[in-house]
């Protein structure tokens, strides 16, 4: 105590300095954020490759933004937005349409307007939703990924149920948007109705899904792990996978391919939105504008084998010929998804 007093440090000055230091430390993130060119983007874990290689360097050069991105599932992004509604830290989120509907209902989004984002006027009409609450930027297509060492193709979705494939199949959980494809296919096969009607035949879908259990090695929520098992030959088929993930791996020489079964394939609903009250709103709008512009659309569509939403862009995935492409009633999905997840988990449990 004596030594402290000699150094000129009294109890009062120590407390005052500590209080100032604490206030400074707590205020630092807000001060830094206010002056920063940094924006945080929520996206899917499967976007990591093209976000790192294409989007981050382009955004630094085009709009001077330092991009931090958090790759996770759409429903987790929604939870992050809802939990931080009073003090959002995400500026832009890229997630799937059914979750966008929930985000709009929870008043978490701010509309994208042509004044702030001029490139949205070049989008296909069906790529702009709910008066600009979100837009689709690219659309991969989804079918059945398979290991080419063990199968020559997947001509029909019925192959998932074939007895010779016992223990050889992994499907996504309904917690993942791509999990819906297996459910809708089960509805079509189980009810015998066309997709437009079958998508509402929930009981038929679950009855058919139950028949799939002997063939399932697992149900995934982490797609990269399941895909790794496909690449290694532990399974022969991975249902509901999409062109933006399988086809780049195929191009790298991995023994996998994406089949477009005759019953139909699905359009992945990849959307982009502005977070209501998110930091750096002008930079966020500039980011969205770039994502919908020709350069980014062409680059991402080519890299991720996806269909661009910008009508001026001629690039990206070739959609398989002669196979119908379905896009479901997402409002119906959003309304029922929680109940379906609970029912699915109980049905598939061992």
């Amino acid at each position, binding site marked *: 105590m004596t030594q402290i007093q000699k150094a000129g440090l009294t109890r009062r000055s120590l407390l005052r300095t500590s209080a100032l230091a604490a206030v400074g430390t707590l205020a630092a993130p807000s001060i830094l954020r206010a002056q920063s060119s940094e924006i945080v983007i929520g996206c899917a874990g499967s976007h990591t490759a093209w976000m790192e290689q294409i989007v981050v360097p382009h955004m630094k050069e085009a709009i001077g933004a330092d991009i931090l991105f958090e790759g996770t*599932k759409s*429903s*987790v992004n*929604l*939870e992050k937005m*809802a939990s931080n509604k009073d003090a959002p830290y995400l500026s832009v989120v890229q997630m799937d349409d059914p979750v966008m509907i929930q985000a709009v209902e929870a008043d978490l989004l701010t509309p994208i307007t042509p004044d702030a984002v001029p490139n949205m006027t070049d989008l296909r009409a069906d790529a702009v939703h709910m008066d600009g609450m979100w837009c689709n930027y690219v659309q991969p297509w989804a079918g059945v990924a398979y290991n080419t060492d063990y199968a020559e193709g997947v001509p029909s979705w019925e192959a998932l149920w074939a007895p010779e494939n016992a*223990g050889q199949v992994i499907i996504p*959980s309904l*917690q993942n948007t791509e999990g819906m494809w297996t459910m809708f296919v089960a509805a079509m096969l189980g009810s015998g109705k066309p997709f437009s009607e079958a998508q509402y035949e929930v009981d038929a879908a679950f009855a058919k899904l139950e028949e799939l259990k002997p063939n*399932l*090695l*697992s*149900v*995934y*929520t*982490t797609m990269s*792990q399941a895909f790794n*098992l496909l690449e*290694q*030959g*532990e399974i022969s088929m991975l249902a509901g996978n999409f062109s933006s993930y399988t086809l780049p791996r195929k191009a790298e020489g991995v023994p996998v391919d994406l089949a477009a079964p005759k019953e139909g394939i699905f359009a992945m609903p990849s959307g982009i939105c502005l977070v209501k009250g998110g930091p750096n709103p002008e930079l966020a709008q500039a980011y969205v504008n770039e994502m919908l512009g020709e350069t980014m659309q062409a680059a991402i569509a080519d890299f991720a084998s996806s269909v661009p939403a910008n009508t001026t862009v001629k690039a990206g995935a070739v959609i398989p010929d002669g196979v119908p492409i379905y896009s479901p009633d997402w409002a119906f999905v959003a309304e029922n998804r*929680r109940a379906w*997840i*609970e029912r699915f*988990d*109980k049905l*598939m*449990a*061992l």
Partner: protein
Amino acid sequence: MTARIDRIALLAVPGLAYLAVIYALPLLMLLAKSVQTAEGFSLAEYRAFFADEYNLRVLWRTLRVAALTTLLALAIAYPTAFVMSRAKGPWLTVFLVAMVLPMSLGVVVKAFAWSILFRANGFINTSLQWIGLTEKPVRMLFTETALVIGAANVFLPFMVLPIYAVVRQLDRGLPEAAVSLGAGPFFRFFNVTLPLTLPGVVAGSAFTFSMAISMYVIPSLIVGERQQTLSMLIARSFLYLRNEPLGSTISAVLLAIAIFVVVFSSWLARRLGART
């Protein structure tokens, strides 16, 4: 003297304040959410949780996996601790490093490594076929056995180190005295050595069980969504179902089990300590 003790006790204030703000307060908020409804206080979420057969199956699986993990870790750790207690010089360093170093490796990495080993064409299946024990690959990935083996590996240091600490202090003269009085090896082990080392066993088991019952990453990677545990149900409730009352209720159930284990093991350790 009293004033001096009080001043020293003040040193605990920052730590306690930190725990109160970072740990106790969020915990209380979480518990409050499990009994809060629009109408006021209610235990409806708890009644609904325990009325659902699926939840009871998950609860039973969680307890069973944690118990089996603890038993397997104990079976490996107990002899290991004795070998370590007799090791000297560089060998002791090797053992301690072997115990502590894996703890610096992320759980995700370890769980993923096990998922590679358990594959049909992984090291274990290839070895079994090479030895001639099996003709074709045995299904190991996505089984409860794989989960118990993987979890026991991850938590092993938490079982070994408490037992080692006790065994190291064991008076070696006591087993020798038992021998001089004509005690056989089994009698010596069950009546002398084991009772003296039980406090370490209890502490290690409490550590391992508490961690095994709340593990999330290891079951997610090794057994997947079809064999959910309580922790996986909690994540699902908050993140996917967005059902905070349900997530809070399951968290409270898990917390109650963990508290019971800690309190019971402390009581048992004190009782065994008093006896020995």
